[in-house]
């Protein structure tokens, strides 16, 4: 018995199929990234050592044996350490891929799949690094945070925000000659609004203010993230082609 397919439902079917393909690609690419990270543990360990030694240098240079840091300094220092860690960790995202491998991806997967997978992978990486950084920082320098749950939520938002804005920038910087400098120069101005919001939110969490005090910041952070992710999603295919 032949079944007549209504054109509208056929289009829907195609869309759904495309979505499924995209999802599959994303999962596959993320798996690949995690496997690569697992095999080349030195890169991840390097990032851990970077975080650890930065925190330790801060501890030494503030000569903290005789007293704790003031809350605003503690807060600013934490986010600055995290900012530099993020720039360094995510910069290698596209730079480490060899030319041949990129060509291979180009022929088998869609650019949207690549950017979404990279963003999710970077968000996971940043989340791990940020949490470890917080743990180490709290142990070495002291922990004035009163509302730990809220602070962890801020860290989550920050990790996602850093990952989403830096992924696109790392793609751009990887194409140019002086990747390292460009990565910092291109990303800092773009990330400042996000950083200011995050600092205010985490300051609220440290002071143990009510969650409603941070609601505005959380919403604008989400809005900035949405803008950045959408723009990256639209623009990445053009970057991919070159």
């Amino acid at each position, binding site marked *: 018995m032949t079944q007549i397919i209504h054109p509208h439902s056929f289009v829907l079917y195609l869309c759904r199929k495309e979505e499924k393909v995209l999802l599959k690609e994303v999962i596959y690419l993320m798996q690949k990234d995690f496997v690569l990270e697992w095999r080349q543990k030195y890169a991840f360990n390097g990032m851990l050592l970077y975080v650890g030694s930065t925190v330790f240098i801060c501890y030494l240079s503030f000569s903290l044996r005789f007293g704790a840091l003031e809350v605003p300094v503690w807060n600013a220092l934490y986010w600055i350490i995290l900012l530099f860690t993020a720039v360094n960790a995510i910069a290698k995202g596209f730079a480490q891929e060899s030319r041949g491998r990129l060509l291979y991806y180009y022929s088998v997967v869609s650019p949207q799949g690549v950017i979404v997978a990279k963003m999710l992978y970077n968000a996971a990486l940043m989340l791990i690094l940020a949490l470890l950084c917080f743990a180490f920082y709290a142990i070495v320098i002291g922990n004035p945070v009163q509302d730990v749950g809220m602070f962890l939520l801020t860290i989550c938002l920050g990790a996602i925000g850093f990952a989403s804005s830096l992924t696109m920038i790392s793609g751009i910087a990887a194409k*140019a*000659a002086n990747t390292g400098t460009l990565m910092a120069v*291109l990303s800092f*101005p*773009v990330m400042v609004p996000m950083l200011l919001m995050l600092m205010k939110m985490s300051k609220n969490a440290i002071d143990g203010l009510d969650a409603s005090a941070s609601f505005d910041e959380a919403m*604008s952070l989400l809005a900035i993230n949405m*803008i*950045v992710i959408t*723009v990256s999603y639209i*623009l990445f295919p053009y970057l991919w082609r070159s």
Partner: protein
Amino acid sequence: MKLSWWKWLTIALLLYTVAKGMLQDVPRLAILNETIRNLYFHVPMWFGMILILLVSVVYSILYLRNPLVKHDIVAVQAANVGILFGVLGIVTGMEWAKFTWGEYWSNDPKQNGAAIGLLIYFAYLILRGSFQDHQQRARISAIYNIFAFAALIPLLFILPRLTDSLHPGNGGNPGFNAYDLDARLRAVFYPAVLGWTLLGVWMVSVRARLEVLKQQLYENV
């Protein structure tokens, strides 16, 4: 001299702005006093900058859809002129702030936002400088231009409104509307905005034409 009508209009509007802006009587407001005349020079710089940077972004989008050299040239020249307007806007703003707020730079959210906005466009120029290949330079800097503009919009329009600022139009300050209501100010302010913006467009078109001619010259050599 053969100029098209809008160029004559630009000259007339700017002469009018400078003459009337300097000579005309202005409302006497506390603290502001004569510095209120900065409304004709500082505020139009920001209007002009935003519009010209918008032109730059539009040409970047056009370049991505249809990669013509001309689109890239207009995009970069508009960014250059936008930066010039931005720098002038910051300088006139700082001068004004010295007399009204007491400091050139008082860590005001609007000032910081403007400075960061300029950093984005300096980064754009650095990015352009680090490519050898023309096509790659044009394409990738167009991508960054669009990306950065999308990040600049929340910065310049949303963030200062979330925090308290000394800048007129924010918080409990005598708002922009308070003196916008004055008909004498309005009679100079609107022509000033139009005049400065047209001057910016003029500069972009001259620079873009020069650049196109240069490229043709190099191609023929």
